[in-house]
C-alpha cells in the first residue's frame, strides 16, 4: 500500500523546499534583534530596533503608512467581499444563464492580467478622466483586484452546500430573506471569512499597482519600505518586516483554523 505512494528523494526535496522558503525570513527575523547598527556584524541581542519602529525618526512616516495600508485593506477587502459574495450566489445558485462564462472570465480577469499591465492601465485611466491620484485611487484599484481573491473561496464553499437546507427552511414557511440570513449565510460564512482574509492580505501586500496610482504624500507600508530599502537594508526595516510577518502568520492561521472548523460542521 505504502509502496506506490513512496518515492525515494521526495522527502529531502520537500525539506529543501521548506528550507528555501523559510531561511531568508528567519535570517531577517534573527537580524532584527541585532544590537549593532551595521547589518554586517552581530552585536548581541537587543530590542532597540523594535523601539525604533515605534519611536524613532521614521516612526511617524511608517505609522501613517501602516494606517493607510490597514484602512485601505479593511475597506477594499470588505467591499470586494460583498461584491464577490453577491457574484458567487448568482454564479453558483443562479442556474444556467446567458453570459455565465463571460461573467466568470470577467470576475477573474484581475488574476489573468499581469500586475504591471493593470498598473499602467489604471494610471492612464485615472490620468485621462482627471481623477487626482491619492487615497481614493489606491482604494478603487485595490477593490478591483481583490474581487477574484474573495470570490474563489466563497464560490468553492457555496458549491459544497446542498440546496436542500434552504429548501427545508422554505418548506417551514421561512421567507427568502430568512432562508438566506438564517440558513445559507451561516453555512457559507467560513468561505466568506477566508475570502475576506485573502483579499485583506492581498491588498496589504500590493506594491506594483499602488506605486503607480499613489498620490503626493501617500504611502502604504510596501511603498514606504521600498523607498527605504532601495538605499540599503536597515535594521529597523528588518524589525518592521518581522512585525508584518507576524501579522501575516496570525491572519493565515486564523483563516486556516476557521476553514477547518467550517469543514467539520455541515
Amino acid at each position, binding site marked *: 500500500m505504502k509502496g506506490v505512494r513512496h518515492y525515494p528523494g521526495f522527502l529531502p526535496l520537500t525539506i529543501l523546499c521548506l528550507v528555501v522558503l523559510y531561511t531568508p525570513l528567519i535570517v531577517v527575523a534573527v537580524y532584527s534583534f541585532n544590537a549593532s547598527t551595521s*547589518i*554586517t556584524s552581530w552585536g548581541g541581542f537587543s530590542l532597540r530596533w523594535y523601539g525604533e519602529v515605534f519611536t524613532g*525618526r521614521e516612526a511617524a512616516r511608517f505609522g501613517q503608512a501602516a494606517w493607510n495600508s490597514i*484602512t485601505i485593506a*479593511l*475597506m477594499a477587502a*470588505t467591499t470586494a467581499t460583498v461584491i464577490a459574495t453577491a457574484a458567487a450566489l448568482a454564479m453558483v445558485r443562479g442556474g444556467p444563464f446567458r453570459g455565465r462564462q463571460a461573467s466568470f472570465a470577467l470576475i477573474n480577469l484581475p488574476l489573468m492580467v499581469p500586475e504591471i499591465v493593470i498598473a499602467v492601465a489604471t*494610471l492612464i485611466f*485615472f*490620468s485621462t478622466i482627471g481623477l*487626482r*491620484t*491619492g*487615497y*481614493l485611487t489606491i*482604494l478603487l484599484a485595490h477593490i478591483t483586484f481583490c474581487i477574484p481573491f474573495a470570490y474563489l473561496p466563497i464560490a468553492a464553499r457555496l458549491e459544497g452546500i446542498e440546496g436542500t437546507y434552504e429548501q427545508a427552511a422554505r418548506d417551514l414557511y421561512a421567507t427568502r430573506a430568512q432562508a438566506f440570513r438564517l440558513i445559507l449565510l451561516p453555512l457559507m460564512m467560513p468561505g466568506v471569512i477566508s475570502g475576506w482574509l485573502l483579499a485583506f492580505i492581498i491588498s496589504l501586500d500590493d506594491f506594483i499597482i499602488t506605486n503607480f496610482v499613489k*498620490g*503626493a*504624500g501617500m*504611502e502604504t507600508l510596501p511603498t514606504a519600505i521600498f*523607498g527605504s530599502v*532601495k*538605499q*540599503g537594508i536597515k535594521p529597523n526595516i528588518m524589525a518592521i518586516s518581522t512585525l508584518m510577518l507576524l501579522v501575516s502568520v496570525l491572519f493565515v492561521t486564523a483563516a486556516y483554523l476557521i476553514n477547518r472548523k467550517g469543514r467539520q460542521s455541515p
Partner: protein
Amino acid sequence: MRKLLLTWVFLASPAFAEGQLKVYHWFEYIPDDLVQKFEAETGIKVTIDTYDSNEAMLAALKAGKLGQYDVAVPADFMVGIMAAEGMLDSFTPEEMPNLGNIEPQWLDVPFDPGRKHSIPYQWGSTSFSVNRDVYQGDISSLATIFDPPPELSGKINVLDSQNELLILGSLYLGIPQCTQDREALKALNDMLLAAKPHWASFGSDIAKDVLVSGDAAAGMIYNGFSAKARAEGANVEYVYPKEGHVVWMDNVVLLKDAPNRENALKFMNFLLEPENAAAVTNYAAYTSGVIGVDPFLDEAIKTSPENNPPEGITPGVFAQACDEETQRLYDAIWTNLKK
C-alpha cells in the same frame, strides 16, 4: 449599513493639519531635524516624497502629480526644462525676502535668470569613487569606470540615471553633449556596451550603501554621497577625473498649481537662511549657494576632499537639455545598453 458607510467616509478623509506643505525631494537630502525645526517655527505639517533622478521626478509630475506638490528640487538643466514646459510658478522678490542671501554667482543663472522660479539648494559634482583598500593603482581617469583594471572589474556600481551616465561616457570619449554626430554616438554606444560586463549593478539610491557594505569596490557617485560613504567607514576616494566631471546645482522650485503656495514660499525663504542652508550642507555634504553659511559649517565638511578638489583639475560641465530629435538618439543608446 449606515454605520459602515460612515466609517468608510471617516477612514477615507485625510487628516487636515493647520497648514500643509508637500515636498517632492531627492532621497536622503534633507535632515529630519531641519524639517522639524521648520514645522515648529511655522506650525506647518511637512510631507516629503522622494525620487532618485530628475527624469523620474519630471515623469511623475507629468503623470498627474503636478498640482499635488508645492515644491520640488530639480537640477539646473531640469529647471530649464520644467520652465519651458510651463510647470513652474514664479514669485516676486517681495515674496522672497531672503533672495539677497544667494551668492551672486548663483543669482543670475542661465536656467532661471534673476531667480523667478527657483532658489539654490546645494551644488556639487558627479564622477566616481574607488575603495582604496581594494585598488591602490592610478584612478585619475574615467577609464577606472569605463575600462576598469581587473581588480575592479565586476565590482562597480553605476548610477541608474541615463543623463549622468551618458554625459560621463561622452566626457571619457571627448564627445560634446547633445550631438547628432553619427560616428561619435556610435563610438559612445560601443564603448558603453564594452564597459557593461565590468559593472555589477545599476542603482542611484544604493550608490552609497554598496560602497559602505563592500558589495561594490568602485562606483559612479555624487561627491557629497561619497563623503557620507567615507564618514560611514568606507575607505573610498572621490575622483575629479582628468577628462572632466559633471557639475550640477539642485534648486528648490515653486511648482505650478501648488496647493499651499504661501507655505511653499515660507519654506523656500527658510532654506535661504544661512543657518538652515548650512544644516543641509552638514547633512548632505555638498556646498550651498548661500552667503554666510561658513560659521555654521562642520569643520569636516568644510575641509572635505570631496568638496575641495585639488588645484588644476579639469573643470566640470553642466548637463544640457537636448532637443527632442537628439534626445531620441540618447534614449536609443540607453535602451541598447540595458537590453
